[in-house]
């Protein structure tokens, strides 16, 4: 009854606020022409920051410049991208392999830059997928997905990847608990049969990921995570909700208790326990897909076991910190001392103290145990509560001047508060329904406190309407002064759940302009037009093709028959910056492939009817791009047309 009453008050407040937004003073009265100067990047000038936004249900990562809000690129990660051939061409197809088979889509959530000493180092960007839990690694020299690791014993890989201070580990926790291992059980046996896992993925010096161990934990919904920094290095914090362990109508049933938990995990302790033989090997099935930068090929490895650790067998590995009302975000401040939680339904932002947490553990200030895991006394760990933080506080980022910034979804605003006094010092409305926020470096030990990006779930009347589905709204806010100031609206791709940003100079000098043709170790590459050839092997035909301004070699091919499987291995043999070529064939059920200089890609074409099939370059490469085309003659099955190919007047017969 109590909760229903709260709900009514909340709805009432929302309506008042929405009314205030629409009826109130002229919109954005505070935005002046000065704002334009702050975000205007003159033609030919470059932005200060690279921003990486998750694409949410687009499955990709988009790359923006800040402060201009200009979109540079969409990096394909978990979803296929016909524009480039990603996920269709043989080189990247295996990246999308899982224990369920090849999956063409997922839901990306939280990008995480690799860290050294708690500061982004510009080597890699990691990002998780929520639906079929995986973590991907993107190389920041090529902006290409180079690796995807599936997380077994999990569903809803939401609290992920959140790199530790030196990228020792990435994590992935289950938002949807499931039987571990999977089993056919009645859903109503949730409490007996369902469990959560907190997975720790190690990253080596080449960036290669490995599932190091999984903690088996109670079947709550583990939501978000944040790594310890400085003094709290070695610890990882996860929020959880649904400690009620409901399995239906969670919107009501998982909101019954006053407090849920932040799980504090001491991963160094876990390493000790596993070193002492406390871990155990558990059967599992998951895929590890790695792309080789020299051969361009990806290789899928099916893995069959993981190391699991039960907190029971490793005292000290994990504690629960009671935290009000279904906390969503958990965010560690730059000093590593404070842990802020965004209780979506809470009326305060509780901030725990890491040092007080250690004291409470020392003094065994436990109020309870859940599955043998100590629950610390709320009063013993709390450092302060931010009062009046807006409705529906979700996520907190920090600046370098001792302030926290929390997004409030229901009241659609950013609330700025001071660490230590826990007092709200400023607030600014956003348009509309604010989810994640991002301060460049705002989750690291050295935030760059100039800008804050608000990622709104709705943009309603902010742009020219484009049908019922609107873009989600990015907003750039100046946080360099005492008062926050709105600077810019820019539309986003998909649904960005969190973002990362890094000063341009940490990435720009390392970005590759092209692939060195002489280092190309693709097994089917050609390095010169003289190496171009067509080879038949039974019903399989391999075309080793070169693309160079402004022709293909070969560009005439005869002797292909219906029923053949034709492999096109196309190499762009250009050695000059930004001379790309594309390749597409009439009626091909594959999309085109896009090739940058020195790159080789392969697609398989299965002609199903006789005729003449033109192919052409799809990327405007040169003044004679329109001339960059060719023909394939397809004869009926068994017609016996001899295999012939060539460029220019001479045809080679095989």
């Amino acid at each position, binding site marked *: 009854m109590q909760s229903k009453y709260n709900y009514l008050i909340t709805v009432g407040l929302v309506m008042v606020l929405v009314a205030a937004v629409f009826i109130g003073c002229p919109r954005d009265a505070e935005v002046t022409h000065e704002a334009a100067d702050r975000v205007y990047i003159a033609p030919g000038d470059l932005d200060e920051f690279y921003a990486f936004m998750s694409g949410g249900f687009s499955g990709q990562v988009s790359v923006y410049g800040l402060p201009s809000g200009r979109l540079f690129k969409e990096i394909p990660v978990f979803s296929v991208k016909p524009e480039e051939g990603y996920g269709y061409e043989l080189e990247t197809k295996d990246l999308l392999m899982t224990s369920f088979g090849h999956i063409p889509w997922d839901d990306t959530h939280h990008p995480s830059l690799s860290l050294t000493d708690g500061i982004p180092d510009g080597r890699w960007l990691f990002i998780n997928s929520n639906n079929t839990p995986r973590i991907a690694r993107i190389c920041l020299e090529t902006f290409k997905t180079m690796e995807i690791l599936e997380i077994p014993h999990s569903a809803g890989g939401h609290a992920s990847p959140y790199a530790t201070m030196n990228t020792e580990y990435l994590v992935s926790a289950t938002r949807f608990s499931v039987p571990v291992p999977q089993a056919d059980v009645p859903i109503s046996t949730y409490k007996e049969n369902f469990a959560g896992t907190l997975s720790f993925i190690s990253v080596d010096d080449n960036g290669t990921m490995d599932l190091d161990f999984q903690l088996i934990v109670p079947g709550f919904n583990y939501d978000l995570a944040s790594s310890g920094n400085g003094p709290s290095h070695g610890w990882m914090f996860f929020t959880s909700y649904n400690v009620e362990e409901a399995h239906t109508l969670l919107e009501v049933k998982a909101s019954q208790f006053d407090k849920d938990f932040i799980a504090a995990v001491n991963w160094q302790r876990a390493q000790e326990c596993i070193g002492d033989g406390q871990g155990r090997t558990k059967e599992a099935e998951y895929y590890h897909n790695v792309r080789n930068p020299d051969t361009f090929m990806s290789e899928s490895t099916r893995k069959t076991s993981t190391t699991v650790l039960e907190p029971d067998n490793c005292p000290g590995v994990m504690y629960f910190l009671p935290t009000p009302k279904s906390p969503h975000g958990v965010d560690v401040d730059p000093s590593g001392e404070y842990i802020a939680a965004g209780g979506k339904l809470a009326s305060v932002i509780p901030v725990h103290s890491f040092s007080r947490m250690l004291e409470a553990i020392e003094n065994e200030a436990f109020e309870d145990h859940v599955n043998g895991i100590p629950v610390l006394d709320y009063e013993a760990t709390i450092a302060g509560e931010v009062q009046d933080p807006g409705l529906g506080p979700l996520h907190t980022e920090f600046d370098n001047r001792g302030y926290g910034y929390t997004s409030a979804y229901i009241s659609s605003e950013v609330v700025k508060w001071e660490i230590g006094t826990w007092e709200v010092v400023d607030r600014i409305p956003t348009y509309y329904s604010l989810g994640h926020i991002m301060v460049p470096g705002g989750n690291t030990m050295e935030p760059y406190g100039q800008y804050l990006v608000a990622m709104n779930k709705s943009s309603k009347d902010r742009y020219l309407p484009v049908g019922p589905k609107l873009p989600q709204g990015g907003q750039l806010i100046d946080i360099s002064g005492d008062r926050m100031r709105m600077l810019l609206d820019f539309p986003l791709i998909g649904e960005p759940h969190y973002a990362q940003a890094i000063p341009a100079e940490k990435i720009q000098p390392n970005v590759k302009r092209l692939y060195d043709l002489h280092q190309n170790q693709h097994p089917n590459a050609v390095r010169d037009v003289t190496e171009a050839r067509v080879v038949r092997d039974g019903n399989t035909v391999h075309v080793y093709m070169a693309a*160079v*301004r402004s022709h293909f070699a070969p560009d005439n091919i005869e002797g292909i028959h219906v029923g053949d499987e034709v492999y096109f291995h196309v190499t762009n043999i250009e*050695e*000059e*910056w930004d001379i790309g070529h594309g390749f597409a064939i009439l009626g091909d059920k594959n999309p085109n492939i896009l090739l940058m200089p020195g790159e080789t890609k392969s697609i398989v074409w299965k002609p199903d009817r006789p005729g003449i099939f033109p192919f052409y370059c799809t990327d405007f490469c040169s*003044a*004679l791009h329109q001339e960059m085309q060719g023909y394939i003659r397809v004869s009926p099955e068994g017609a016996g047309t001899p295999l012939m190919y060539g460029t220019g007047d001479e045809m080679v017969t095989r």
Partner: protein
Amino acid sequence: MKLEKESRTLFAVAVVILILLYFLPIWRIDLKAPQYPEGIGLYILIDDIRGQERNNLLSVNRLNKYIGMQAIVPEEIPELQIMPFILGGVIVIGAVCWFTGRRKYLTGWIILLVIVGIAGLVDFYIWAYDYGTNLDPQAPIKVPGMTYIPPLIGTKQLLNITASSYPASGGVIAGLSGLLAISALYFDKRLKKKRAQ
């Protein structure tokens, strides 16, 4: 007549610095086009023609294909095989002349240097003329009456490309060597006059 000590030293420097020409580009051709904000160009060395940046020569050849210009293939230019020996000859003869310490040999070496320099420039122009005018009749881009002779020295507009040609560090050093040798001769006369008084 023997050279004075000071002018003989200048002569030595003039000969020795020519050794640098084995390592430094003699001439540079810079090409500017809207599509190449990063710049593109060639260096001419005593024994090679090379892109200013990696792959620049390849890029120039691929661009030149459109107007039917022959590809620049350094291995097929005989002068690049011969020039190191000619330079070696100039240096050895210079050393011998210096060793004699006689003024007329210095004068002789200066004449040799000027002849070799002029011959080099003439040869460069002949090649440039051939590249710029001897075009493939099947070229995709044909502009009636247009030729593409790059400038010997200076800047010239060739379709969308602004081509500039200048001495590079090696060329400057060659010129400096000549100037040093000539000033050695000049100062020698003045020193002798002074010391005779």
